């Protein structure tokens, strides 16, 4: 099974918000709801010796996804391509998955009254295209691909960096797949390791 994920090189990310709009546009995400959101982290240090980086966030495609574990209906599920998704038809809106997600990256769709989140854009990737946020990223610093395939864009960019520059959001045993590249020169990783 593939292990598809997004990798973001924060050394290059400029916090331009393009990925946020690309995602909303592609997926028709309503106002006040997010599948992808960019945060400023910092400044770290004291003026004028400061560092700052931006952290684009979306579903981290956990290997042990707590959202799937707690979902009482199976609406949150892992599909045959190993992607954690939500079946809107089955979701009863209990929000347990939202509580269980360690990163708060699930979104409540007030129109349909179901939970939704980043899908990794299968409607594009199954056609061989990149997810909207990856394709349009202004700094071209988002990568998508199979982490187990050394030839994927995602694996190739990770291979260029030292372990110490590669991070994941605080792992509570859920093993997030999204990887972030951040070198000490640009910023100090603050989101757990």
């Amino acid at each position, binding site marked *: 099974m593939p292990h598809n994920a997004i990798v973001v090189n924060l050394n290059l990310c400029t916090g331009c918000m393009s990925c946020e709009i690309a995602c909303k546009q592609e997926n028709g995400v309503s106002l006040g709801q*997010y599948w992808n959101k960019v945060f*400023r982290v910092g400044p770290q240090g004291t003026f004028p010796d400061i560092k700052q980086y931006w952290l684009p966030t979306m579903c981290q495609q956990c290997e042990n996804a*707590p959202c799937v574990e707690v979902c009482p209906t199976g609406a949150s599920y892992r599909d045959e391509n190993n992607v954690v998704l939500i079946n809107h038809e089955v979701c*009863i*809106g209990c*929000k347990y998955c939202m*509580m269980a997600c360690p990163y708060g990256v699930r979104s409540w769709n007030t129109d349909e009254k179901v939970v939704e989140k980043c899908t990794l854009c299968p409607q594009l990737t199954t056609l061989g295209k990149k997810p909207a946020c990856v394709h349009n990223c202004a700094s071209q610093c988002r990568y998508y691909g199979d982490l187990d395939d050394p030839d994927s864009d995602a694996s190739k960019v990770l291979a260029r960096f030292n372990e110490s520059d590669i991070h994941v959001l605080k792992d509570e045993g859920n093993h997030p797949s999204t990887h972030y590249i951040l070198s000490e020169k640009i910023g100090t990783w603050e989101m757990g390791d």
Partner: protein
Amino acid sequence: MEYQWPLVIFTVLAGGAGWLLFFTALNELTGTITLTKVRDTALPIAIVMLIAGGISSALHLSHPERMMGALAHPTMGIFTEALFVGLCVLVSVVFMIMVRREASTKALKAVAVVTLILGLVLNLMLGYSYMMASRPEWDTLLLPLAYFGTASILGATVYQLIAVLRKVDEKGIAHTGWNTMVMGVLAGITAFAYAIASGALAGTETVHSTTLRGISLSDVAVGGLGGSTAVLLWVGVLLCGAVIPVLCGFLIKRKPEKAVWVAVIAVVSALLGCGAFRCFMWAAGIASINMFQML
């Protein structure tokens, strides 16, 4: 996180009902004869509380019509909670029927054992569903324990009120007063232990403020001891949920004849305290990294 009222109500009612069943069953087993007539009122009340709680929890769902889907997908959490609520209702009904049909003492004791266990397990389950790694303030066994403890005082005071209303003899009423005092202490200790050990009182720091968003994420982190969560804890959980009921229990034990108003106050106070603890939990339950702030 915002208070989830339907779930607050559900866990209060179901928890209280579970304890009510516990006390009823316990009396069946230990045989304080004078309290037997309490049983006849307590069982239907427990059933009503369980059903009302169940309905309330369904109100929390945006698509209750799809709820049957949950049955097809057994997991820990909601499914088991629902299961135990159902089992408690079932056993209470059976208990009632057996009482009506004047079943043998042995049979009644047997059903009482089942009822007692179900009442306790339901109470543990109710809090256990919230233990999740994503919310560090919830991810401690002290949480189900505190759910257990804070519901116990509700069960005890309701049981006590029924005893008073059914004009049970002084000894019996004094006995329920004892229950109340013990459970009040249990509620206070478990709630306080949770509040301290979970770090909920310390407040949580989230990500930094964001340039292009005009809001500061750190603004929404819970306040420390001085914040509104602390008020909830001191006034709601500890004063209403423990101190006042214990005092009531004490008064009732001393003067069982003048117990009605005191018993009512004890129930109301315990109800508030039990609810307050659940609210406290919701307020404290900030995800370790809550990016979208959707909950």
